[in-house]
């Protein structure tokens, strides 16, 4: 797919170049992550922001490449508006964003998850190289957002399970909740007791009649 950048290619390439440098500078300090990324050599993941239009293709390998234009087929892509990315990044529990489906993932979602979890293990100093291009204030904001996005993996792993159970119970109502079940069982117990009492009454009445 030919990606037509809407931002001036100079700025686009400058930002990606700075980010690429930041990531590749952090990689040697996480040799296991680097080795795992090297195993994915040549695979690619595209991150698409639709409003405003911006995209980056991450070409995987022991050294990551961040490309503004990538014309080969990508292994996986994620798409959403900037607001959706920011909401997801800023959320107390970013897994909600995933579950609600605001961000659309296409292709090999396992590759996307793998990359996210690998990058979340890196301690990347985003601010310094980005501030060098866009200045301190914007650099700090962009750095903060990137840090949140790339820490998704860490946050979501711990909370995904809980969120998923909430989704199944509350949103999709595939299964009753624990409280509802307890109510249900309590009702059953009450019914059981009523039946037992009725049965006992009936027996007593039957005995009186016989007597």
């Amino acid at each position: 797919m030919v990606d037509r950048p809407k931002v001036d290619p100079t700025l686009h390439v400058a930002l990606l170049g700075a980010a690429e440098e930041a990531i590749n500078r952090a990689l040697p300090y996480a040799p296991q992550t680097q080795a795992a990324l090297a195993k994915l050599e040549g695979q690619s993941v595209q991150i698409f922001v639709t409003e405003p239009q911006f995209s980056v293709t991450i070409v995987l390998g022991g050294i990551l490449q961040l490309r503004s234009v990538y014309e080969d087929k990508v292994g996986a892509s994620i798409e959403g508006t900037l607001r959706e990315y920011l909401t997801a990044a800023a959320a107390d529990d970013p897994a909600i964003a995933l579950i609600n489906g605001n961000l659309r993932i296409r292709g090999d979602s396992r590759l996307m998850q793998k990359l996210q979890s690998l990058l979340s293990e890196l301690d990347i100093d985003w601010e310094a190289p980005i501030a060098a291009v866009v200045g301190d204030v914007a650099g700090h904001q962009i750095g903060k957002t990137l840090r949140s996005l790339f820490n998704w993996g860490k946050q979501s792993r711990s909370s995904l399970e809980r969120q998923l159970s909430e989704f199944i119970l509350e949103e999709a109502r595939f299964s009753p909740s624990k409280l509802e079940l307890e109510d249900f069982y309590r009702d059953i117990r009450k019914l059981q007791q009523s039946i037992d009492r009725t049965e006992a009454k009936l027996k007593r009445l039957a005995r009186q009649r016989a007597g």
Partner: protein
Amino acid sequence: MSEQGKTHFGYQEVDVDDKAGLVAGVFHSVASRYDLMNDLMSGGIHRLWKRFTIELSGVRKGHSVLDIAGGTGDLAGKFADIVGPEGCVVLADINESMLSVGRDKLLDQGKVEPLSYAQADAQFLPFADNSFDCITIAFGLRNVTDKNLALRSMLRVLKPGGRLLVLEFSKPTNDMLSKAYDAYSFNVLPKLGQLIAGDSDSYQYLAESIRMHPDQETLKEMMLDAGFEQCEFFNMTGGIVALHRGLKPW
């Protein structure tokens, strides 16, 4: 070319036969400080323009690449990393001084294997037909005497389906930017040239030659006329620079 036998050398009109010698004079003069000047003149942005060129080149491991007017070897060095030892990168420049500065720089960086060097005229490329997967010419086409002849020569040596990328100064898309850019080019640039390279005339020529170079649409038409297809251009930094790309038909 304005009339038979005449061409531009900056704002001057000179005999076609003289242009190559005059351009050679400029580059002999600036070769040793060319990298430094590029950084100073563009604020380092030329590196970003070149990075974008590499992204659009689609060059991969094992490809053969010709970098024409490759001068100080910025693109050729990056291509050498991408194509690897099984590929081939030829750094070509008509100017001996520029070529030797580029070769020394790449050797100093330890880059040897896929690289070779050729002192060659873009109008008469000394390579077999259908030799290269990709040809780049960065900030070189405007110095070529007959640009149409050079484009046809590049088409000949490209493999079918191969890409030509022309990175060149172009026409700013915004009037305000255009005025600021003019003021910079004609007032600041020659003074920087005098200060750094000890040669204001050469940088005056560079500024003039940029203004005489065909604009985005004209160059695209020239590429189509030469026989390239799927021609397109990407404006960068508000059109101060444009990257044109065309494919050789199958």
